[in-house]
């Protein structure tokens, strides 16, 4: 019973995050880097993060 509750809470939290990211990402926030409207600072942040270059993650650099 406690296990079911724990898993239920985890699934609920995940669903809240999922909804938040999908709504924010696809309905409210436009992909600035893709649309070419990103600021220089934003572009630098993306570059530094390594998120767009999965072959060389930041930690291994």
């Amino acid at each position, binding site marked *: 019973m406690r296990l079911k509750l724990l898993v239920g809470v985890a699934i609920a939290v*995940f669903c809240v995050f999922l909804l938040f990211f999908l709504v924010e990402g696809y309905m409210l926030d436009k992909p600035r880097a893709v649309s070419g409207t990103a600021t220089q600072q934003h572009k630098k942040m993306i570059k530094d993060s390594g998120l767009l270059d999965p072959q060389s993650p930041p930690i291994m650099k």
Partner: protein
Amino acid sequence: MTFFDIRTKLLGNGLSPQPVDRILSLPRPVPYTPDISPSSQVPSVLTLGNRLLGYAPIALTGRGIAIPKPKRMLSGWLVVLSSCLIPTIVIALDVPTRFLNRSHTLLTLAGICATIGLVLYVINMVLATRIKLVEDLFGGLNKVYIAHAVTGSLALIFILAHPVLLAVRAMPLGMHYAAALFVPSMKHLATTYGILGTALLLVLMIVTMYVRLPYKLWLLTHKYLGLAFLLICLHVMFEPNDLTGNMFMRSYLIVCIVIGLAAYTYRSLLPNLFVRRYRYVIQSAKEKMPGVVEVTLKPARQALTFEAGQFIFVSFVTDGLSAEWHPFTVSSAPDADALTIDVKSLGGYTRTLTRIMPNLAGMDVLVEGAYGRFSYRNVNNSKQVWIAGGIGITPFLSMAQSLGKGAYEVDLYYTVRTEAELIDLHKLANLQTDRPNQRFRVFPFVTQKYNRYLSADLIAANTPDIATRDFLICGPTPMMQALKSQLLQQGVSKHRIHTEEFFLT
């Protein structure tokens, strides 16, 4: 202890006073119980008394209570814990910049969650194989299945945490990047495998844990967990990441994946090829009471070996029944020529089975096992109390028939709702003995008759020095939980209480 001692003890313990006649009918060993009415299944007190006074032959065929076996449950969980901790420590320490800033910390935590999730998933699949090693580690298949449920649930939680942490890490770049981690895309196949694997795992776990499906359908959905595992493995293998830069981690993950796939192939994909099964023939099937059928099986070729108290999985191959595998405890002695199981109508499958069973003599069945560690032989104490609730009597039937020549002092409390539910009381009564160093007594307890449940107080009133005895309990879960907590209150150490959950879900 006299009737009045029992009464005094009960009243002295603050239990609600009861009419004297009710107190007088509290449980006593079968031969001396004046209020068990003779019936087709319950022999008359006189008959039983005569037989026992003359010490009817007792089956001294087993090997006795002699072999102490260590408790292994802890070592099973130690293996689980160390399998998760070792990679966690390696990941945390292999690169000094792991926790350098927010981004690195979140990436590291996401990697750790993914690794622990995968390891737990693999352990979960290994536990489902029912191999002897895991049974030895956890101390019985029922405990293995508890660990199976726990590791599966934890695996889901860690796997769900992985994309959430990565998305939180990506938030400063823009919510679109965070959201993209949850949306499958043909451009990033490796990520898509992970997304689909996680989604499938999530759906199947919800179905497994929260949706009441017929067993056959539930089993089918459970098999697709292998597909979710395969997708997650593809994600681990092909998604570029900073964990596999470490040689140890690369090898560890590959070994985990291989073990997981092997376990899935062994138990779910090709069980007929790898799992040892025995062919038996139904010799007879007779109704012991409404809803309970005793099935006697003869080996077609080789017979399986088992310990008293163990259970087997049986698949009945006949029209009108699906060839599912269901667990049944063996109620016959290990050295008997035939294998006997008592099938109680508890669910859809067993209901159909008990209905058609009397017509199935001569039919082939497949048997797998034996499993379980619930036996008096696994308890290093010759003084024991056995407590059976309803159909939970079956392991004790086998144990009682195999009590050996060594020293033992065993009291069996057999509780049922109505008198008609007492099965094989006659057989048990004939096995009673009262010799120096060898005592086996049976206390039937009919709850409807006494208008109360069997309790630790009643047991303490009939069985001396309960704190020094080991308790073996098998019955409905609420009964086991209630008795366990009462026994703990009576001063019995929790290490002396052994339970068998016969609902393997």
